[in-house]
């Protein structure tokens, strides 16, 4: 399928948003950006780069994207580092850190860094800056992960590299550590034209539901999330059972198992045990790549739940809000940034709260509709990929003038 152009986004976000991007970009003629990450396919960062790199180029910014190279040893190390930064307990011997640095140095020899702005994504290529200390351009580290409780040993090792950058970008103030460089907030964003989010034909949605044996005779309450204890699928079933004493509905759980997580099978067993033989509870095990079907499940839902107990940002919330679905979300991680309680959805703190939310939204359809409409607007304002394009343009416009409060652009 042909990649969407800015013209295609104009239809979705409105012409004024695209015009604004064009004007900002016109002040950046011939400026260049290099994005560097660790994988060309799979994962949210690669997905986002596939979307924004061509759009920034269309705006006249010269953007290139390099992927660092490494073997299994390197990626085993970076996976451990990634997990440790997200709080996992681990102990690293010095040779592990040395190997990480050796791989970064080798990649540094093979990549040119001549662009005006270098954006390094996540910890895998973070240390590249170590061999670029006499640079004339600007370097920014974009951290996409939850750094609220980093493993102290790993953070002690990485922090000196981070502080060599000109700035760092985090998704939330909850994730940003104390640093002696400027820090910016870039929310993660969804692509409204991706298969996961684009408009779908009603006939197709009906067909998907029929294909998976989900009758549409009652309101459907859905959680789409990996089968992981932190997503609390068992709690969702308990909340559904409590709510069903008062309202008639079906529960749909859609998720995949983390391939590298032995706990995944155990939680799926618990989910099945909690559901029992209830014919109104539908448990689907999915590959995350079946994006259009997931889109159909979200659009067919009367209520979407994201009852997480711990969360990074949970873009599944933005995905559902964009589709004008009433949302119930756990008040953790990035969910409260997306759900403003009582205005763009309902925030809950317990199984009981989730159960009350289901009853409330099913019995108050006008209220649910208003929440959903506000939620759609919130996503349009903050969590679409076009907003991230704007953030990158503003970053390029302001990096030389970080001390100024207001910059006037004139031709």
């Amino acid at each position, binding site marked *: 399928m042909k990649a969407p152009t800015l013209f295609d986004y104009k239809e979705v976000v409105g012409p004024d948003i695209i015009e604004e991007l064009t004007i*900002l970009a016109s002040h950046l003629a011939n400026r260049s950006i290099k994005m560097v990450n660790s994988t060309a396919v799979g994962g949210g960062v690669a997905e986002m780069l596939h979307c924004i790199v061509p759009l920034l180029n269309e705006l006249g910014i010269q953007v290139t994207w390099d992927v660092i190279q490494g073997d299994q040893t390197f990626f085993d190390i970076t996976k451990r580092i990634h997990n440790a930064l997200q709080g996992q307990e681990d102990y690293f011997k010095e040779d592990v850190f040395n190997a990480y640095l050796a791989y970064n140095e080798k990649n540094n020899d093979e990549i040119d860094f001549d662009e005006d702005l270098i954006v390094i994504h996540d910890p895998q290529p973070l240390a590249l800056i170590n061999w670029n200390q006499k640079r004339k351009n600007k370097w920014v580290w974009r951290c996409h992960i939850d750094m609220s409780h980093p493993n102290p040993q790993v953070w002690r090792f990485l922090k000196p590299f981070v502080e060599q950058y000109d700035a760092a970008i985090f998704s939330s103030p909850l994730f940003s550590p104390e640093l002696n460089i400027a820090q910016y907030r870039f929310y993660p964003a969804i692509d409204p034209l991706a298969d996961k989010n684009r408009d779908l034909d009603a006939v197709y949605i009906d067909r998907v539901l029929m294909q998976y044996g989900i009758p549409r005779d009652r309101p459907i309450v859905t959680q789409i999330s990996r089968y992981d204890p932190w997503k609390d699928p068992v709690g969702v079933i308990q909340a559904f059972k409590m709510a069903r004493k008062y309202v008639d509905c079906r529960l749909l759980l859609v998720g995949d198992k983390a391939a590298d997580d032995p706990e995944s099978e155990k939680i799926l067993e618990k989910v099945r045990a909690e559901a029992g033989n209830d014919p109104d509870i539908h448990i689907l095990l999915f590959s995350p790549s079946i994006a259009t079907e997931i889109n159909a499940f979200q659009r067919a839902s009367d209520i979407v739940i994201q009852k997480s107990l711990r969360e990074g940002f949970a873009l599944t919330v933005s995905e559902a809000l964009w589709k004008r679905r009433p949302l119930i979300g756990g008040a953790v991680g990035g969910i409260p940034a997306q759900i403003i309680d009582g205005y763009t959805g309902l925030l809950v703190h317990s199984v009981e709260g989730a159960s009350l939310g289901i009853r409330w939204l099913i019995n108050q359809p006008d209220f649910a509709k208003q929440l959903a409409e506000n939620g759609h607007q919130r996503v349009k304002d903050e969590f679409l990929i076009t907003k991230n394009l704007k953030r990158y343009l503003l970053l390029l416009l302001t990096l030389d003038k970080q001390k100024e409060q207001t910059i006037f652009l004139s031709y």
Partner: protein
Amino acid sequence: MADVFQFLSSASLEKLTGRKAETLDELLNLIKTCPDSSIFYHTFSAYMKMREIRLPYNNDFSYWISNGLNEKALAEKIMATDLSEYNTLRSLRLRLIDIIEDYRNQKSEAFQKRADDPFHLFDIIRVVYLTDKFAYDLKSFREAISTISIYSIYFHFIECRLEKDLQTNDFSTWIESNLNLPDLAQMIKRIDLNAYTLEGLRTRILQLIDRYLEEI
């Protein structure tokens, strides 16, 4: 002949400061010591976003005081601060400090409360830029209002007061001084921003122009 009105707009980048407050005293300290641009971010900038999703709050401070500390009365007092009355951030900052300090006399125990979720202080870098939209007369002004971005509407209706130390908005100033239409200028000046989203504000300005044109 009227001077041409070239529409401007603004955009901003959010900076994390690492500073936060869990109590009213800590919030007061942030408000007293933060840069002007942080005051701007948590009031003017927040106001724009909150309006579009129809939140009753008009700034981040009142939202946190209401939701984080459950001090509804103080939140309401801060909400009642009309941003359109402030043409310097210094005067707005002093007003916020006064409201919170006065509240200590009314309910000192509120200052003992500690929120579970802290208030995170942000800073901002604003970028102000020219757009390619112009107005020469009332007709072209009306056309431009219907097509400019909500950011441009917001800039000329609210933010401009800070740039130019104005007591009114750019639209009313231009309509009065260049088109010599003081009645229409006054009607636009009297629009209550609290009652409208920015799209609603656009619609309201267009209605006022259309009504004015029908009546003359």
